[in-house]
Every structure is written in structure tokens, then in C-alpha cells.
């Protein structure tokens, strides 16, 4: 395939898209010679275009699922009203209060520790515990009903955890069990403030996904982090963007070429009370949290899966795909061949060129035969 010759990290980040793309438009191998009719008939290409307009797998990945409409009837209606009153009138203020108290306690403890403690080791240990505590407060603020399956991650070097990504709350849910150092997109607002002040103390690394230079720096930081014996376990969301927990987009290969054990984590949300997908284009993270805090509960399963190692002769991309298979199977996600960054960028012309190459080849071959 032509992909081996393409330079640049972004291009190499993807498995062969052509293996997945619908191939309806490829000219059928037929023994016939080339006729005018064959050249004029562009219906396969048009059908493919119209098919994409009517429905496409990429858009489906980022579709928020509206709650299933249930049967309105007069008996259920008062109950529902009562539910609304309880959720907004009682639960929400209570949860807000929990969060507020949590934050106050956290800051009261965090800043003295951060600025006064000299002992590196003890300080980071306390900070780690505090961050875990704060994350439990967050989970409590949406009555997180979370089942963790499998052995808890341990803190040791040479391992990296990868999980599917639905919302920033993935991170909170995982962080309350283990103080992970996470690789995340830089965010604006209060989230950015927390990223910079607090989460950096557990070794989190921030970057801007559109900045190529940032990506190089991150790659280096990653390697250093994994080698360091005292650092917190590393957590990466290799999809690079939030997906609606029904599909999974391609994994970036960065996490899979660090030369260490890759421990997959599968996260599946139960949509019974609320859809945990954060559609960052439509909703700020604050509004997303409010939505979670006004629902009955966030129900979720987390599976810590068997650590995986790079096999002999396996490329980083094949490795990433193998791990994606495991997570998709465990969490019941459908795989799509798209790079999540396409939410922000146009696809590269490489894919169009591949289609053109196949068409041109068949025309030339059939012309020679006639």
C-alpha cells in the first residue's frame, strides 16, 4: 500500500483506511473491454456520495442520544412531576453543597501542603490522596453508581493505561480509584485552571491537539514519564476525542509505541437515567456537569482488562487495533474506521487519491486489453 511512504506523524497515526471504506465504487472486475457506457456510468461514485449524505458512520459516533420517550399517561405524570421536584429542588442543591464543601476542604488542605511541605515524596503522596478524594466528591455529586471489575491498577513504572472516552467524567471516575497521570487536551475556563494548578501535581500532561509542536513535546514527556519509577500510572484516551459510548473511533498510536505494557480499560455507561456523552461542540463542561447533577444517577461499569504487550512483528498500529478490539468487545462498542480529529479537520486528500488510483488503474488495464 502507498501509506508506507507517507511522511509525517499524523498520517502514520492511522490504520489503513482503505481496508474499511465502502468499496462499492470500485469498478467491478469484468472480462469486458472498455466501452463508452463504462466511462459514462458514474452511478457507483454518485451512489456512494448520496449514501454518505443520507447516513454516515462518523456522524453517528458523535450523536447525543435523546432519552427514550416513554408513554405519557395520567397516572405516571404526577410521579414524573414529583421526580422533577426532587431532582431539581432537593438533589441538585444537596449535590451542589457537597461539591462546594468538597472544594473548600480540598483547597484548605491542598495549598498549604503544596506550598509548605518540603519533602517531595510525602507531599506528592498527600496530593495524590487529595485528588482522589476530590474525584470521589465529584462522583458523589452525580450519585455515581460505578462497578469496577477486575484488579485495581497498581503504581509501578513501565505501564500505560488506555481507555475509551465518552466525557471528561471518565477521568474523574478512574481517578477516584487510582491517581492516574492523564494526557488531555488543554481546556479553557475553570477546567483549565484546575488542570494547571492541581492536576499537574499528579503528573498530568496537557497539550493542544492542533499544535504539532505540542505533540512532539508530549511524545517526549510520555517516554520520560513511563520510565520514571516514582511517577503515577499513565492514563491515555487514545481516541483523542469524546465519542458517544456506542461507537469507537481509531486509536492514536502514541500510547502503543512507548515500549511498555498497555492495560486496557473499558468504560460503559448505562443510559437509563442520563446520557454521559459530552458533546463539547454543543455544551460547555459546566452545563454537562449540571445535566449529570440533575439526573437520578450516573450508572457505569468499568473493566480493568488484561495487560497487553507488543507481539513480535506487530506494528504500533496493529497493536492499537488489537487493544481497540478488546475494549470494543468488552464495552459493546461498534468500531468505525475514522480518526476522531476529523471532528475538527477535513480528511486528508490521500483517501480521495486512493479512490482515483484504483479507478485509473482499472481504466488503463481494460484499455490495454481491448
Amino acid at each position, binding site marked *: 500500500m502507498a501509506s508506507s511512504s507517507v511522511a509525517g506523524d499524523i498520517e502514520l497515526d492511522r490504520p489503513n483506511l482503505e481496508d474499511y471504506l465502502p468499496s462499492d465504487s470500485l469498478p467491478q472486475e469484468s472480462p469486458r473491454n472498455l466501452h463508452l457506457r463504462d466511462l459514462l456510468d458514474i452511478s457507483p461514485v*454518485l451512489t456512494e*456520495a448520496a449514501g454518505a*449524505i*443520507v447516513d454516515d458512520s462518523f*456522524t453517528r459516533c458523535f450523536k447525543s442520544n*435523546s432519552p427514550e420517550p416513554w408513554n405519557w399517561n395520567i397516572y405516571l405524570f404526577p410521579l414524573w412531576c414529583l421526580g422533577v421536584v426532587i431532582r431539581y429542588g432537593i438533589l441538585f442543591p444537596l449535590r451542589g453543597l457537597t461539591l462546594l464543601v468538597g472544594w473548600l476542604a480540598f483547597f484548605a488542605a491542598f495549598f498549604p501542603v503544596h506550598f509548605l511541605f518540603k519533602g517531595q515524596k510525602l507531599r506528592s503522596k498527600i496530593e495524590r490522596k487529595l485528588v482522589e478524594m476530590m474525584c470521589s466528591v465529584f462522583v458523589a455529586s452525580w450519585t455515581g453508581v460505578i462497578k469496577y471489575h477486575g484488579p485495581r491498577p497498581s503504581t509501578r513504572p513501565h505501564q500505560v493505561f488506555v481507555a475509551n472516552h465518552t466525557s471528561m467524567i471518565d477521568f474523574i471516575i478512574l481517578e477516584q480509584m487510582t491517581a492516574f497521570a492523564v494526557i488531555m487536551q488543554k481546556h479553557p475556563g475553570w477546567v483549565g485552571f484546575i488542570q494547571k494548578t492541581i492536576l499537574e501535581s499528579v503528573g498530568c500532561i496537557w497539550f493542544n491537539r492542533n499544535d504539532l509542536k505540542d505533540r512532539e513535546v508530549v511524545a517526549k514527556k510520555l517516554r520520560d514519564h513511563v520510565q520514571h519509577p516514582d511517577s503515577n500510572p499513565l492514563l491515555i484516551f487514545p481516541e483523542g476525542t469524546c465519542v458517544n459510548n456506542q461507537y469507537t473511533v481509531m486509536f492514536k498510536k502514541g500510547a502503543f509505541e512507548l515500549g511498555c505494557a498497555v492495560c486496557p480499560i473499558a468504560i460503559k455507561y448505562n443510559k437509563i437515567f442520563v446520557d454521559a456523552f459530552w458533546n463539547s461542540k454543543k455544551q460547555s463542561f459546566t452545563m454537562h456537569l449540571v445535566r449529570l447533577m440533575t439526573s437520578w444517577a450516573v450508572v457505569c461499569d468499568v473493566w480493568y482488562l488484561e495487560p497487553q504487550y507488543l507481539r513480535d512483528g506487530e506494528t504500533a498500529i496493529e497493536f492499537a487495533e488489537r487493544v481497540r478490539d478488546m475494549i470494543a468487545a468488552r464495552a459493546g462498542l461498534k468500531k468505525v474506521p475514522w480518526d476522531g480529529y476529523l471532528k475538527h479537520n*477535513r480528511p486528508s486528500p490521500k483517501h480521495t487519491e486512493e479512490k*482515483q488510483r484504483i*479507478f*485509473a488503474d482499472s481504466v488503463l488495464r481494460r484499455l490495454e486489453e481491448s
Partner: protein
Amino acid sequence: MGSTSSMLTQYDIEEVQDHCDHAFSQQEIVSLYHRFCQLDRNGGGFVSADEFMTVPEFAVNPLCQRLLRMLDGLNFKEFVAFLSAFSPRASLQQKIEFIFRVYDTDCNGKVAFDDILSILRDLTGSFMTEQQRQKVLIHVLEEAGYTKDSHFTLPDFMKILDNSDMKMEVEVPID
């Protein structure tokens, strides 16, 4: 929640059905309407070229620029009419008419050598040279009894494409 997108009344649906020659069932129209609202991100009541290009599967299509010229700024009725050629209920004639419209960029009812060549250029990109394209085209034209200067009309297209086993159908997902 979720109620804003299904505001089509029976009258609206029937009006759209009339507009597209009943190529789609009422359920299909409702599905298409959901899809249309999804594509129309800024909610202006029409889908712009940029919004179509946010669908990667469409954006990688070799003919997408050409189709965008037909698609840019369509409202829902026109959107459905555009897609009606791909309905299983559309006749072969309607499908061929659609193909003809793609070729006939200046809408004068005639397709010249250059029009066909330019589609071929889109389809083959840098993988054929301009000479190769011309050679191929002249070869098949002469074989079919035409010349480089022939102009094709819709009936010509019908004659050429009529007996081909064309399958130009798109299924509208109904949920």
C-alpha cells in the same frame, strides 16, 4: 428534549412527497428530515457546502466538489428532490437524467467532449495523464460511433446507459 426535530406535520410530509414524485415513503421523509437537521448545524434551514463537507465519507468522494455545486444551500424540499434519484422507486430514466445533470455543468442540455473529460479528470486525478485521458475517451467514443465533436443530449445518454445493469440506490435508514 428531542421534540424540536420532529415538527413535520402530515401536510408538510405530503407536500415534500409531491415535490419528489413520491420517491420516498412518509417514514423515509421523517428520517431524512432528522438527517437534514443534523447536517444543518447552524439551523439556518439550509445546508451549506461547508456543512456537507463535515461528513468525511462525502468529503473523500472524487466528485464531491462537483456535487457540492448542486447541493450548496439546498432547503429540505430541494434536498429530498436531489436524493430522489437514488430511491429504489425512481425509474431508470430519472436516474439517467440525474447523471446527465451531473455531466451537464452549464445546464444547456448538451454534454460535450470537454464535460466528459472533466469528470474523468475528477475520477482519475493524477493517476492518468491528460493525454491518456483524451486517448481513452476518443477510443471509446469512436468505438461507439461518435467523434470528439459529438454533443450528447439526454436521449443519447438514455440510449447509451439504458441496458446497463445500473444499481443506483440508497437506503434511507428508518429508526
